[in-house]
């Protein structure tokens, strides 16, 4: 039964992302709205962590471009922090501290901005297209999670 998922996703910014993400998760049929939020946050954690790993994997470039290396390192850290913040929000939800959960997801959503800004500081650096895609992806996931939490009873 996906009616709860549909109802829940209707209140979020990105219905299609929300529906497809939750529908494909094996635990969603038994989840209540809070459980759906946790699933979405878990997807966000996976996304942030994988981006952080992806950035770290690019670090040992043959070139000795220290600026590039420093910016990549900074971005890897920022996405790692995003993952940590999302982890904190799962704990907040468990404690029914919905305002803190919202705060931590807001923080997680902004770490990609910090990464993007790091690139902007150096005119010579080009913000990679695939990183821009990952940035939008994480932000949209966070928006969906926040939309679900918005409609919890708190």
């Amino acid at each position: 039964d996906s009616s709860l998922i549909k109802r829940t996703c209707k209140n979020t910014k990105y219905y299609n992302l929300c529906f497809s993400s939750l529908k494909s998760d094996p635990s969603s049929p038994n989840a209540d709205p809070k459980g759906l939020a946790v699933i979405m946050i878990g997807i966000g954690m996976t996304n942030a962590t994988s981006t952080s790993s992806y950035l770290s994997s690019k670090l040992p470039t043959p070139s000795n471009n220290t600026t590039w290396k420093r910016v990549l390192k900074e971005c890897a850290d920022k996405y790692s922090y995003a993952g940590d913040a999302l982890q904190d929000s799962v704990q907040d939800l468990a404690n029914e501290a919905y305002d803190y959960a919202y705060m931590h997801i807001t923080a997680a959503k902004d770490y990609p901005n910090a990464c993007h800004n790091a690139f902007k500081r150096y005119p010579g650096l080009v913000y990679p297209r695939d990183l821009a895609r990952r940035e939008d992806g994480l932000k949209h996931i966070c928006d969906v999670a926040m939309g679900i939490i918005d409609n919890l009873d708190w």
Partner: protein
Amino acid sequence: MAGGKVKKEKGKPHQQQKHMPYQGGISFHKSKGQHILKNPLLVDSIVEKAGVKSTDVILEIGPGTGNLTKKLLEAGKKVIAIEIDPRMVLELQRRFQGTPHSNRLTVIQGDVLKTELPYFDICVANIPYQISSPLTFKLLKHEPAFRAAIIMFQREFAMRLVAQPGDKLYCRLTVNTQLHARVFHLLKVGRNNFRPPPKVDSSVVRIEPRKPRIEVKQKEWDGFLRICFNRKNKTLGSIFRQKSVISLLEKNYRTVRALELGQEDSLKEVDAKMDFSSFGDDQGMEMDDDGADDDEMEVEDGEADEVQSEFKDKVLGVLKEGDFEEKRSSKLTLQEFLYLLSLFNKAGIHFS
């Protein structure tokens, strides 16, 4: 490896479902009353209206996760952020770690009311509304004076700060604030711009300390205003005819005269500790008096002895001299209050 990691992550939702679903009636572990500002246009607007210069040191109170902090760092020279919540402090520090802003941001974790404030040019604040009044007056007493503070308040509190004589929300808080600063209303902020949404709308005000400061003895001024605003819609004549007011002022008067004449014997006979605080609550935001009359307090005591009657005439004479007898506090300007207090003081009548 990636696949394995995904499985590990997704295992967590199963664990979470062991928690009881929300049952209602359970009290939330609320944050310290702060509300996170959601609307990025508002953030930009606040920074613009703060008029930040590139040379400014900015004090930010209640930065939360730093949405506004980032803008302030871009606009000013340095930001000192005071945040009571250690979890938000962590996110704030992480957010700016490694960026060129990091050496221009100082984060102080603590209660702003208990923290000694550093020098600053501009203050920007998004605070729990329960500390609105104490924070405002802490800022206004701060030395050296800053150029401006841009603060988000609950709308009614903000409207009291900017109220003009005759406005419904004009009160002792208004006069006390405007004694120290000029206050301007900048923005109305609907409750839906926050998460969680507060029950009331908010407003952003700009507070500019007066330069030069208006010199007034604070205790004297406070005691005076408490009496004037005891019933802000009654005439000053009727307020100052009250037995309780006359009695208090006369004791004070005798104390002052005794001190002036150096008659220590007279001083010993008089209780020197005057209690003006019984008039009005500490916040100066007592319930509005919409003309309710308390006739009992107005009854003149025909049996008063000559001294008391004489002093009462003295007090009422001051009001007549300044043409204040028929006026009401709810319509007096700051300048009129200052003038009336000076008339009383010249007559040897004091309020502290």
